[in-house]
């Protein structure tokens, strides 16, 4: 047995929960549908503090840009910036196409800073999996890319064994993916103590038998299990930019300040349907954080989220990229498992992107009309 939690017979638990009465829960039905586009301006301001007493050495930074492009639901509108850096250029990750603004300040610059303004347009997504789809197949290159293992998402060993066990008996893609989705919802939990969005080391997660984490852990586990089943999947790393119009406090940015609103979602490529949005990690977020908190798995809010997030996303979120194992150009430091936070290096080495005392950044998101 791989973990101490019981495997769920796919579909059964979900079906039983879905039949529960909605009760007195009064909010809009959680039913995102493609409709009007929403436009957002996102301003990222970064200040790199030099180590105490150290004024020597160049400073570098790499800031992710929202360059993900999917014509049906996400359109990047470009980025502009102002900075006192000696050089600033947009560079791309050669494998996944993630874009970042790479900056370098001279040693003489006492207060390195940059402010980046990005514009994006996005909208709700929903894929109707009850009817046959007509989407074009995934290209060979992308299929290989999104079936492949990454440093932190292996597709062999315990990940493959777990995936095989979960999908045992499932005949088709949708049934397999549904089984994995339900397994994630039933067997993982959101751990509030996890730093940032988590590390995403899914083999360690499974080996430990303790399946707690945040989105970069839980959705990475989902992606790894799906890839291990031979179905292309990917994490998309991004940022919540607006409250949920469906009343989920836990699933939206509830302030213009979104500095800590990073969130990754996941997609699975299903034959005939194309990339299908999913987010089992957000189901666990609803369980833990949706007021009054620590909801039961059969709470109507959880039931609705669980049903909806298999095939739909709300367009209150911005996508940076779907990249893994990203080398930062010009850095002698390690690759980052994913590029969702600004990164910087000084004479002290790579800074802690989750430490606001040494590496100050703020992100503000505002919606605007065109």
């Amino acid at each position, binding site marked *: *047995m*791989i*973990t*101490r939690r019981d495997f769920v017979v796919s579909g059964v638990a979900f079906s039983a929960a879905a039949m529960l009465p909605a009760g007195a829960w009064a909010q809009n039905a959680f039913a995102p549908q493609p409709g009007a586009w929403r436009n957002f301006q996102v301003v990222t301001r970064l200040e790199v503090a030099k*180590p105490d007493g*150290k004024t*020597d050495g160049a400073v570098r930074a790499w800031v992710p840009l929202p360059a993900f492009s999917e014509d049906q639901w996400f359109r990047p509108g470009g980025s502009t910036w102002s900075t006192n850096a000696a050089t600033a250029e947009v560079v791309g990750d050669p494998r996944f196409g993630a874009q970042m603004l790479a900056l370098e300040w001279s040693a003489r610059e006492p207060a390195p800073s940059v402010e980046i303004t990005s514009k994006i347009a996005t909208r709700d997504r929903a894929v109707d999996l009850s009817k046959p789809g007509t989407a074009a197949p995934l290209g060979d290159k992308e299929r290989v890319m999104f079936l492949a293992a990454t*440093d932190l998402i292996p597709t062999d060993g315990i990940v493959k064994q777990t995936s095989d066990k979960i999908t045992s008996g499932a005949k088709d893609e949708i049934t397999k993916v549904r089984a994995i989705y339900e397994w994630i919802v039933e067997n993982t939990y959101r*751990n509030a103590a996890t*730093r940032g969005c988590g*590390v995403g*080391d899914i*083999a*360690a*997660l499974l*080996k*430990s*038998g*303790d399946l*707690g984490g945040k989105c970069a852990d839980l959705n990475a586990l989902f992606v790894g299990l799906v890839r291990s089943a031979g179905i292309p999947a990917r994490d998309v790393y991004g940022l919540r930019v607006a409250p949920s119009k469906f009343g989920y406090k836990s699933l939206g940015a509830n302030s213009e300040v979104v500095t800590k609103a990073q969130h990754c979602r996941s997609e699975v490529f299903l034959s005939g349907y194309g990339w299908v949005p999913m987010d089992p990690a957000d189901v666990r977020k609803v369980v833990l954080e949706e007021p009054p908190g620590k909801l039961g798995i059969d709470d109507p809010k959880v039931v609705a989220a669980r049903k909806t997030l298999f095939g739909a996303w709300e367009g209150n979120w911005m996508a940076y990229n779907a990249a893994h194992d990203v080398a930062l150009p010009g850095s002698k*430091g*390690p*690759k980052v498992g994913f590029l969702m936070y600004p990164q910087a290096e000084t*004479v*002290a*080495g*790579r*800074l*802690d*992107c989750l*430490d606001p005392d*040494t590496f100050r950044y703020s992100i503000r998101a505002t919606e605007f009309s065109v």
Partner: protein
Amino acid sequence: MLCASALLASGGAAAQGEAGLRLEPPHGVLSADAGPSALRAAPPLALEMLAPVGAPVQQVDRAMFAGRVVLVHFFATWCEPCREELPALNRLAARFADLPLTLLAVDVGEVDARVRRFIETTPVAFPILMDRERLAARAWDVSVLPASILVGPDGRVRAEAQGPVDWNRAETDQTIAALFASADVTRQAQETINHPSGGPTQ
């Protein structure tokens, strides 16, 4: 990488059998019975040592300590049991200061800046090696933090624990002392354990 605090909170005994760990809640013993992996050759360990800002970076290789008993301790600053163990490891290092024991702490998957800030408030008496890309943790098959692996003078794994260890227990000292290659050194270690000059170990 998971931290053992959650395992303990949810029942370390359950994790013991299913995940192949030898963890005895609330604090395990560094057992000389290291299970099926006992006596395997210890993997290589060559990492940069954490250094002050601007100081030259030193590469540390476990092979530098051939003939000594080496305790390799994997940790991370975000891991609560790891933070609790470091002061006890300081005391262990002090008890064995005159004996051929080398303690190497390996920080897993964190940036230097964070570890430097951490040791400002939790100083340690042994080198901290930086496993920035988790390659060493993988090579040593570490999946839960903290994890401690005791390597004998012959370079073979003699004991290990994935999860917290009570470093103040006499049994732990005995396990380490038994590994010294020289009978004289082992005897010296036993005398040190039985008649500590540095006061109580708690």
